[in-house]
């Protein structure tokens, strides 16, 4: 079987005074072996909640998976106990975060943190783990790896810390790496280094990567397939070439057109009017309708389904048989009325 990760109808929410508030609304996607899949969307659309759901790291936040399944190599992660889950995390399934400082222990030397992760998951002696740690640091392009083993996190620059995080994340040769905005906090020249390191280790280890980012440039640069999220839903997904060459959803089109491109020579940028609705104040119907330039009557009444079209999914009435639906709704409402 080629599918490494299959997320099916995942719904995740947070407990509020007046009950559960869902922020991820039934999303489904998959990552194949050796494939880099991007999840892209603006802040608050549910990218991080999705990744934390897969890793089952929601309890700190305090969020909950409300429905759906996360199949990883044939096992449903949502059904595992915390103890079973620990065996996967950092081993078969690894994650890197935006801010490496928060996930490195500030009072432990880099070498010890790496070694402990390795020893926890791989059957190695202290000495072997130490050697393996050094070779991992070298593989992510850290110069003077032996010295860095003796450094504390605060002694390293942001780019170096992110490399260390990658080294820890890949030290047990995971088959899937989830990278949540791994380069967002870094400078462009350092970002270029980190992305090239990630692509190299991905190729060597045939690792699958779920790359979470708000940056369309990063998506175009590294991903094979892309999932576009808006307001906790998948609105479009396609191969990276297809998505940029022939985007379908008005939100995706708007997003691509909003990014300034060097050498484009235009005076005004395309801009999507308005802002993302907040989870407590979602419009009925299509969640993008208040900002959409092609909005129709039905969009305001009924939310479109995510329709599959030859490896290119899209959630928009422009691509669906809306006439029948309108009749449906009208009949339904007159029957009720």
């Amino acid at each position, binding site marked *: 079987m080629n599918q490494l990760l299959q997320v099916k109808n995942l719904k995740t929410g947070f407990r509020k005074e007046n009950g559960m508030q869902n922020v991820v609304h039934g999303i489904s996607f998959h990552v194949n072996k050796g494939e880099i899949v991007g999840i892209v969307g603006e802040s608050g659309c549910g990218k991080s909640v999705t990744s934390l759901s897969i890793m089952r790291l929601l309890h700190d936040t305090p969020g909950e998976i409300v429905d759906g399944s996360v199949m990883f190599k044939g096992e449903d992660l949502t059904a595992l106990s915390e103890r079973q889950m620990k065996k996967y995390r950092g081993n078969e399934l690894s994650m890197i975060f935006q801010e490496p400082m928060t996930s490195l222990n500030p009072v432990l030397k880099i070498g010890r943190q790496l070694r402990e992760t390795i020893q926890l998951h791989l059957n190695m002696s202290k000495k072997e783990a130490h050697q393996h740690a050094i070779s991992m640091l070298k593989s992510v392009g850290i110069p003077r790896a032996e010295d860095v083993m003796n450094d504390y996190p605060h002694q390293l620059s*942001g780019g*170096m810390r992110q490399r260390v995080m990658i080294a820890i994340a890949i030290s047990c040769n995971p088959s899937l790496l989830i990278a949540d905005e791994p380069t967002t906090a870094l400078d462009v*020249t350092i970002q270029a280094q980190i992305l090239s390191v990630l692509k190299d280790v991905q190729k060597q280890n045939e690792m699958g990567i779920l790359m979470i980012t*708000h940056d369309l440039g990063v998506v*175009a640069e590294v991903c094979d397939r892309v999932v576009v999220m808006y307001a906790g839903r998948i609105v479009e997904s396609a191969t990276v070439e297809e998505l940029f060459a022939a985007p379908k959803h008005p939100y995706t089109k708007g997003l691509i057109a909003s990014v*300034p491109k060097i050498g484009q020579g235009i005076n005004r940028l395309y801009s999507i009017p308005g802002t993302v609705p907040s989870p407590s104040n979602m419009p009925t119907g299509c969640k993008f309708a208040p900002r959409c330039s092609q909005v129709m009557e039905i969009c305001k009444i009924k939310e479109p389904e995510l329709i599959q079209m030859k490896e290119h999914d899209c959630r928009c009435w422009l691509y669906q048989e809306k006439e029948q639906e309108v009749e449906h709704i009208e009949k339904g409402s007159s029957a009720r009325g």
Partner: protein
Amino acid sequence: MKKEVLLEVKDVKKVFPLSTSWFAEKKYVRAVDGVSFTINKGETFGLVGESGCGKSTTGRLVNGLIKVDEGEVNYKGNDLANISEKEWKKYRKPMQMIFQDPYASLSPRMKIKDILMEPLTIHFPKMSSSEKQSIVKELLGKCGISEYHLEKYPHEFSGGQRQRIGIARSLILKPELIIADEPVSALDVSIQSQILNLMKDLQEEYELTYLFISHDLSVVEHISDRVGVMYLGSLVEVASKQAIFKEPKHPYTKALLSSIPQPDPKVKREQIVLQGDIPSASNPPAGCKFHTRCPLAMDICKKEVAQLQQVAEDQQVACHLY
């Protein structure tokens, strides 16, 4: 047509002491280390570079938020670098700032109305309240915030709306020069493009001159007429936008340009991945500060500083290759 120079920054320097323990050797950061550029009236000068290279410090030196150690800041021909606090008052009005985080720069306990009226109250104590209100309403409208928001507090707005309010506030006193420090860096792309369009519209309408500080080269390319590229406190290249982006000369500018991920998977380009980290500003390399990462470094680069040289009409480069 001869362009009118509004701002001329000449060999400006600023050193910050680093707070180390009292018995250790005193250390300094050369945050801005001899920076020179000019901005013509009505133009946008983009200042780019990576974190810590001295962009914000340069902006704050220009508008007098911090004092210049050495060099000149000539505004319409008057050197502001060495004037007294009292004389500065004259220049507070024509020079305004827009910041990256509009939230931090708007007082949380004040209503939008009061935030926007405050500068008028300070500078025009005799102005009537109704006159102030009408100025505020007009500007908010121009910035895309409707009147009925006047009674709200900053936390009731989204990031993009707060940036609009920040921009409106910067325009209240009819400034000539706006120093915008990463004004769109905290915003999502769809909001970023709204704000960039707004800044362009306002520039046209009010004949504004911008010093636009950003780490994002795509944004800088979009908005600027001329661009300065900074590295470790120094400008390495200053040129027209066309020259910087079509014919970059400095190896650092080239690397920076090639590092930007292009939002188009069909674009396959030669990428220059720089080796090593950005050196610390408290201990910059001798000679050309870029030599530790420069793929073209020569022997002379380790010893001698390269000065900015004119290499083409409106293109200056600081590199021994030229």
